[in-house]
Each structure stands twice: as C-alpha cells, then as structure tokens.
C-alpha cells in the first residue's frame, strides 16, 4: 500500500512540475510569439505582392485588412460580418446573410491599433453588436492599393494536408489571376511533403486564371527542365535567361496542370485543392461584398 502511494506521489510530482514549467514558459512567450507571427504575416503579404526582401516598398502602397466574422444572434441565425475601414474616419461592420443579401451596417468604435490586436478587436466588435449576438473571427482578407488603384488581394486559406492542416496564402491580381502562393504553416514530412514550401512548387500556381483553376489537376509527371529553371528565380538568374525568355517559357507552361512532388502526391493535391477552394470562395465572397457595399452606399477606404 505504501508503495502505491509513493508511486502515485512521484509521478504526480513530475507531472505537476512539468505543467508548472510549461505554463510559466507559455505565459512568458505567448504574447511575443503572436507579435512575431503577425510580423511574419505582414512580411508574407508584402512578398506575395512583390515587395519582398530586397525590393523597396513604394510609399503609396496601402494594404487594408478586412476581417470576416461569423455573427450568431440570440435567435440562432447566422450572418457574416465584414469589418471594413471607411473612407471617412472609422470602421463599420457590414452584415451579409448566408444567401448573400446585405443587412445592417453597424459602426464600430475603435482605432486601427486596437483592431490589429485580435483580442481587443473581438471585444470592440462584440461591444458594437446588439445584446445577445456573438461574433467569431473567421479570417483576414488583405486588399492592396497602389496609388489609389487596386493592386491585388491576399487571401488566406487552409486545407487538409498529409497529417495536419496546411495554412496558405494566395495573392491575386484585380482580375483574380493568381500572382503568388505562400505556405504559412504546414507540418508535412521533411524531405517529402515539406517540399511544398519550395519555389519550384509554389510558383507553378502563378499565372493561373480563375478558369484554369476550375479544371486544375495534379499530374504525376516529371517537371519539364525548362519550366523548372524559370520556376526557381535563382536558377534562372544563374543560367542567364533574359526576362523575355522567362516570360516565353512561363507562357508555354501556363496551361499545364500542377506537377506532383516526388513522393508527396497527397501533399501536392492538398495544396492544389486548397488554392482552388480559396480562390473560388474569395471570388464569390468579394462579388457579394462589392454588391452589398453598392447597395448600402457605403464609402470604404479601399
């Protein structure tokens, strides 16, 4: 009997000590980790728009974040809410019901810094909503303008990978052609599925139009050598291809399907479906949102 108590106490002590250490470390690092993640997100958006490391960001590049929320009221009906920056100062939450019909526009009192922080943003939105309604964060869409002209969109998406969900971002030009794709978070196997992070895979999506995306498949064929060279900017530079040659080869292959990674067909397929889904949903949602804004006569900043 004494032995049992000893064993239980010993293992409990180990567990409690481990839990305390983990809790303390988590409390210390959580905020800093979020700050770093946010910075990483901004860097990813900028590099997708073509202003990565080494390229100077023009001063008149403006990136607006539109936060999509799912709002459930006290009767249990669900509507979507888009938190939009207004042309005049301030922010408003535009409700759109699930069939795409615009609803109320609720002004939200908060400044930009408060809205950038997830917890204070949630609080500001829930404070603006009528009693009994609850808003849950869904995603952040980024809309980029250059000299007050639309430059493009950066849309987050997620897809079921080989083991865990893959989070990605797709950038689109104003006509919804894919201009870039980045993997934000993935736990694929190193050496196999993790290759989805590589340029030669990611850049295969560049230039795909909405129509091409609809029928896009993954094919198990070797990547053509000339295509591989232009997909990796470093390689193209080393070989000495001119801009015209690069454009020509890219044009030749733009209608190609996605070439599966060696030994990682599932991951390749997961990312391809993720990109297709993300773009399809975004185009549909943006269409509804633009329509609703027109109907509401809402002057937004972007």
């Amino acid at each position, binding site marked *: 009997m004494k032995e049992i108590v000893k*064993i239980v106490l010993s293992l409990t002590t180990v567990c409690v000590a481990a839990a305390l250490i983990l809790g303390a470390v988590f409390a210390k690092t959580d905020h800093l980790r979020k700050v770093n993640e946010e910075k990483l997100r901004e860097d990813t958006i900028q590099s997708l728009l073509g202003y990565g490391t080494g390229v100077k960001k023009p001063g008149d590049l403006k990136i607006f974040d539109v936060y999509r929320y799912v709002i459930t009221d006290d009767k249990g009906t669900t509507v979507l809410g888009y938190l939009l920056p207004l042309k005049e100062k301030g922010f408003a939450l535009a409700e759109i019901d699930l069939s795409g019909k615009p609803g109320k526009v609720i002004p939200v009192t908060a400044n930009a810094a408060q809205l950038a922080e997830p917890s204070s943003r949630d609080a500001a939105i829930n404070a603006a909503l009528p009693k009994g309604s609850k808003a849950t964060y869904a995603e952040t869409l980024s809309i980029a303008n250059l000299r007050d002209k639309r430059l493009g969109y950066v849309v987050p998406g997620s897809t079921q990978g080989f083991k865990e969900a893959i989070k990605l971002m797709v950038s689109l030009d104003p006509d919804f052609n894919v201009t870039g794709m980045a993997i934000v978070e993935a736990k694929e196997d*190193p050496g196999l599925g993790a290759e989805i992070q590589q340029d030669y895979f990611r850049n295969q999506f560049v230039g795909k139009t909405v129509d091409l995306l609809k029928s896009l498949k993954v094919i198990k064929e070797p990547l053509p050598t000339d295509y591989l060279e232009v997909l990796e900017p470093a390689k193209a530079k080393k070989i000495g291809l001119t801009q015209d040659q690069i454009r020509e080869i890219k044009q030749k292959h733009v209608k190609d399907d996605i070439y599966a990674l060696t030994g990682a067909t599932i991951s390749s397929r997961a990312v391809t479906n993720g990109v297709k889904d993300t773009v399809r949903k975004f185009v549909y949602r943006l269409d509804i949102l633009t329509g609703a804004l027109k109907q509401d006569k809402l002057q937004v900043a972007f």
Partner: protein
Amino acid sequence: MNRNVQLLWNGLIPENPIFRLALSLCPAVAVTTSIKNGLMLGLAVLFVQVCSSCTVSIFKSYIHPRIRIPAYVIIIALWVTVIDMILPVISPDVYKEVKLFIALIVVFAIIISRLELFASKEPFVPSFFDGAGMGAGFCFGLVLIGAIREFFGAGQIYGYDVLGFKPLLVMILPAGGFFVIGFIMATFNWLEYKITGKLPKSGGGH
C-alpha cells in the same frame, strides 16, 4: 584519456547511435534527403538529448524506479515543448527551419535509451558529456547519410548544384535511405574488424 572526452568520442564513433547502436533508424531514413534536413534534426536532437540527460541525472533519486519510463517521457516532452515555445520568440528565422523537426523528437528511441542506460545511473557531468556525445553522434550520422543521399540523389551538396544532374534518383527515395545506412554500417564493421581484428558483437535495434 579523460573519461568525459572518452564519453564524447564514444557517442560520435565507437557507439554511434545510428551506425553502431542502430537506434532511431526511422527518422534517420525519413528525414535525411539532404544535408540541411539532417543537420536541423541532428541539432534539435543534440539539444534535447543534453537537456534531458542533465535533468534526469539531477532528479534521478526522486524518480521512483517503477515509473521511470513515464517520467522520462514527460521530461523529454517538456524540453521539446519548451523549445517549441521559446525558439519562435528568440529566433523566428531558425524556428521556421526547424519547427517541422522539433515535434518529431519526443519518441526517439535514442534519447530515452540514453536516459535509461546512462543518465539514470551516473552523476551530472558524465551525463552531460554522454548526452552531448550521443547527440553529436546522431547529428554526425544524419549529416553523413544526408550528404551521400543528396549528392547521389539530387546532385547537390547543401542545396548547391555540384553535378548539374541526378545520378541516382533512388537515393532520395526511402529505399535509398536504407541502402546508405546499410553501407555505412558495413563500413563501420569492416573498419572495426581491420583495427581490432575481431568481428563486432551483434546488437538489437529499434
């Protein structure tokens, strides 16, 4: 030779975790498609091994022998999680490279077997050197396998093209991992036979 130096050397070559102890072969095959992958996992294991060995050797008298295995697993998982939480704060760039590998480490046979065989019986300092030696030996093994596979499978060394073509694509695939480990093990045994004149003892693996 000083015992601590002996322990370090022991883990690196005479008792190399991969080629002599045949432990943790699963990650050694799965991850080593390039030098960089091998190096990243190797460094992560080295760190967790040293930290876990030191922790166990300090607290060994408080851990009841009947429940030592769950206690060791908790200690390893604790270090892995702590690294997973601290690294993105200290160095987001490094974390971006190694985060895939960190989560794999918890159940590595090599780490728990060193805790069981060495750190649970020895004082702090030798445990530190044993952990460092074994971790370094594992890292060395992964880099060596990665180098051979990357060179023959992709024609590259550390991501840089050296050949310009791929001599043996099979080396990058899982089968190539088994080939390379088998050949290196054979080389180790052959060297031991040449040097000591004795055939090596057979050992179990995980």
